[in-house]
């Protein structure tokens, strides 16, 4: 169709010399002498395009996306839940959106108060002693937590604890973060039930052990019942345990990570606390810590002074801080949204989140396990990992199953992750989807299985109904075309 095809013309291809996209004011002060020509540039190669064209272009681009507002989006490990509109409304209030991070604290008490409440809520939810809101995404939270562990060891003269354990099922950011902090990463296998292989773990509990990063529930969607034992083993070996809290949607109000023996963890506000993912961010990855690690939290944190006064809330630097990880205080706009979300749901609502999220996932599990291989036959948490191995036997790969789902109007599950499961399809429905939607999704999954038998080509060549057909990723990587360039 014309509209879609047309819309693939890039801005620079639509540019026409002389067009303007906005009108700026005239200079209202006397003109000042310009610097020497050697400092000035000729012209900037930006498009010349008018407001109507810009609006139509980006509006139509948006229409080529699947999203939570338009589709069921059961992308495992991503917690694609509904993002309430009041959260955005709050973040856009001028008193939040139009304040500068360097204003004296007396001018921004409202913002600091909100951050202080949020720190406390997150500490309470995780059962930890304190929170720093400084880190800007999950991965940066991980880095902070790992640096805290590192500094803790160094401060105790334990600086040659250089080994960090990471389960083989872990999200890629875990080993990457540990490596970024300079640790040697050792992978710990998952046992046949999907839990941590305790024997393997014990073997690695050596004096150079700095700690372990554990995702709970794991990226297999499973709660490891031996978790307390695992944490004990690490502690016994002198290590500390980092919890990747990206999957907290399963556990809100059901268990506190602090109670299980974790020392430090991050939360993904853009998952569990429903701030929109924006096509790839912004997020926020606050870090919560036990008293032992609290002094190491990233700066700044918000403190509330005992006495009333115009500077009741202040920004402070934890005593042994690992430092700053961004120029400001965190992704404040995201924090406002998460705060609004927690206040909306309250204690009762947060508990309902995990109940519904886990029930929804198990319902899918129960309704699909006769058609798709279930690698771990036990109740899952907020997400279920299936395998398309049976379909593969018919000639249809997991990737193709996933792409075919797009034709049915559902976003695909996460594919080929965790890496430990063949042809993995990681399905996370979240609590904001209805039973009706789940039933339709289940029906589609079953229909695709049948298509794999009866008409495998249909599945193999999917998608059929989207703005583009299967894209050539190999070519993209082989001959990188990464920006528009003027044709000579």
């Amino acid at each position, binding site marked *: 169709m014309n509209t879609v095809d047309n819309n693939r013309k*890039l801005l*620079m291809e639509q540019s026409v010399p002389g067009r303007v*996209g*906005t009108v*700026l004011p005239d200079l209202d002060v*006397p003109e000042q002498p310009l610097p*020497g020509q050697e*400092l*000035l*540039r000729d012209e*900037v190669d930006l498009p010349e395009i008018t407001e109507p064209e810009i609006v139509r272009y980006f509006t139509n*681009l948006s229409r*080529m*996306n699947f*999203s*939570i507002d338009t*589709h069921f989006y059961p992308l495992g490990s991503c917690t*694609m839940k509904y993002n309430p509109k*009041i959260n955005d409304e709050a973040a856009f209030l001028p*008193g*939040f*959106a139009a*304040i500068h991070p360097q204003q004296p604290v007396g*001018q921004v008490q*409202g*913002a600091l108060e909100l951050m202080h409440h949020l720190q406390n809520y997150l500490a*309470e939810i995780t059962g930890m002693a304190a929170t720093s809101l400084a880190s800007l*995404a999950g991965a*940066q939270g991980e880095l902070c937590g790992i640096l805290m562990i590192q500094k803790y060891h160094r401060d105790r003269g334990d600086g040659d604890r250089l080994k960090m354990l990471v389960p083989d099922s872990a999200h890629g950011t875990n080993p990457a973060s540990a*490596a*970024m*902090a*300079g640790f040697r990463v050792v992978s710990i296998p998952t046992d046949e039930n999907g839990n941590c292989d305790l024997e393997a773990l014990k073997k690695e509990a050596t004096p150079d052990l700095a700690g372990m990063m554990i995702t709970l529930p794991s990226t297999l969607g*499973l709660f490891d019942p031996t*978790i*307390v034992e695992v944490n004990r083993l690490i502690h016994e070996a002198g290590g500390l345990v980092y919890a990747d809290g990206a999957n907290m949607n399963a556990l809100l109000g*059901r*268990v506190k990570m602090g109670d299980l023996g974790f020392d430090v963890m991050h939360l*993904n506000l853009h998952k569990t606390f429903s701030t*929109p993912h924006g*096509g*790839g*961010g912004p997020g926020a990855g606050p870090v919560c810590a036990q008293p032992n690690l609290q002094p190491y939290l990233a700066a700044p944190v918000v403190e509330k002074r005992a006495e009333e006064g115009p500077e009741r809330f202040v920004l402070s630097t934890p005593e042994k801080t*690992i430092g700053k990880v961004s*120029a*400001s205080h*965190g992704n404040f706009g995201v924090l406002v949204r998460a705060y*609004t979300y927690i206040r909306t*749901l*309250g204690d*009762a609502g947060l508990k309902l989140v995990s109940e*519904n999220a886990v*029930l929804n996932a198990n*319902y899918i599990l129960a309704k699909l396990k006769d058609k798709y291989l279930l690698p771990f036959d036990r109740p899952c948490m907020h997400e279920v990992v299936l395998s398309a191995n049976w379909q593969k036997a018919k000639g249809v790969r997991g990737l193709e199953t996933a792409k075919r789902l797009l034709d049915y109007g559902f*976003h695909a599950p996460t594919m080929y992750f965790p890496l430990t499961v063949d042809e993995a399809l990681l399905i996370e429905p979240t609590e904001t989807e209805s039973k*009706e939607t789940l039933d339709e999704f289940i029906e589609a999954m079953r229909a695709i299985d049948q298509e794999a038998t009866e008409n495998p080509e249909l599945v193999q060549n999917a998608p059929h109904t989207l703005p*583009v*057909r299967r*894209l050539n990723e190999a070519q993209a990587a082989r001959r990188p075309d*990464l920006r528009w360039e003027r044709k000579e």
Partner: protein
Amino acid sequence: MSDNGSVPFQSHYMPNTPAQRAVMLEALGLDSIDQLFEDIPSEHRSPSLNIPPPTSELELRAELEAMAGANRHTGAHASFLGAGVYNHFIPSMVKPLITRGEFLTSYTPYQAEASQGTLQVAYEFQTMVCSLMGMEVANDGMYEGASSLAEAALMACRVTGREEICVLNTVSPTYREVVETYALPQGLKVTTMDAVRPRLPEGAACLLTQYPNFYGYMEDLEAHKVAAQERDALLVVSTDPVAMGMFRPPGEFGADVVTGEGQAIGVPMSFGGPFIGLFATRKKYLRQMPGRIVGRTVDSEGKTGYVLTLQTREQHIRRERATSNICTSQALLALASAICAAALGKQGLRRVAELSYHKAHYAASLIGRVAGYSFPIRGTFFKEFVVKCPASPSVINERLLESGIIGGLDISHVMPDCMLLCVTEMNTRGQIEALAGALSEFSR
């Protein structure tokens, strides 16, 4: 209404009703949802949760408005605060476009066919960053300006196989802190040096500079390039993209990596975030670049389409050997910047830069005439400059606030009695003159 307290809480965010959940449980052959949580050690199950009860939207809105209302903001005040976060004009089309659900509530575009919108925007953003910086390749954005610079330093160490990072003392102090947070734990060395004729030690991986620098002045990139090249070190430049509307881009000076804070183009100040880190480099370093990259390709019918590419650099493939741990970044803000940059366009970005330039220089000329104020730094500045004041900047700022003015940044801890003032196209002549007027009350 009377029985309000007694009915179980039903959330407007969760469709399934108790009746439906019962049906679902039955399908699972279970009696209660608790049975699904039995892997949790029983002594830790269902702890108390000390969080306030659910709140209605109506009440919460009032509470939020009160909290927001407790902050002094640029909607109601003139502001001369910059220092890396700027109050620039954002056209009204940005917000309605970025809040379209299809952009706002989609995930990272792993499933390319269902994410062409997000992917094409990323390609536009990469194009725009390259244009602004005069560079060959750019990624789809990092967290923000400071960590983007830190990642550039790490990349320089990878590329050169060296371990010493040199930073000019005119780079933002906070940016330098962030570089240290990222670099020191890995055993890398961070050395600060004077910006006037810096001499890099042998074995330096890179020279980090800021342009315009933290104090608002244009660094001599030509000289810095020579200094870096002498040691085969990479020249890394952190920029303000608005300055790129009028000043020669770092690419033309031979910069190897250019980073920056994208906020100034299209993103509200929001107390410091979410923002968007810019990251551009030379083609030869492409495979060492951190962050997401989007490429153009074709579909099975030959039609143009976009995909995430060169993913083998990234954590989800390369794991501990990835070029960075970054995953979720700031895509929505990259979108905002791309829309704003398109709206400003070739003429508009230059105009924003020039308006800021002329107004800032006009402000300086007025303040320069007030007895007791002086400019400790010589050189060409863009929209910010340092003023030495006849009184403590914090005292002056309190006085300014009474006139509805948010004053400049108090930098007296690095330069006694000095204030870093910023003027942009958002400041009217009236505001500038009011500032000068209020400052003159302290004149000596």
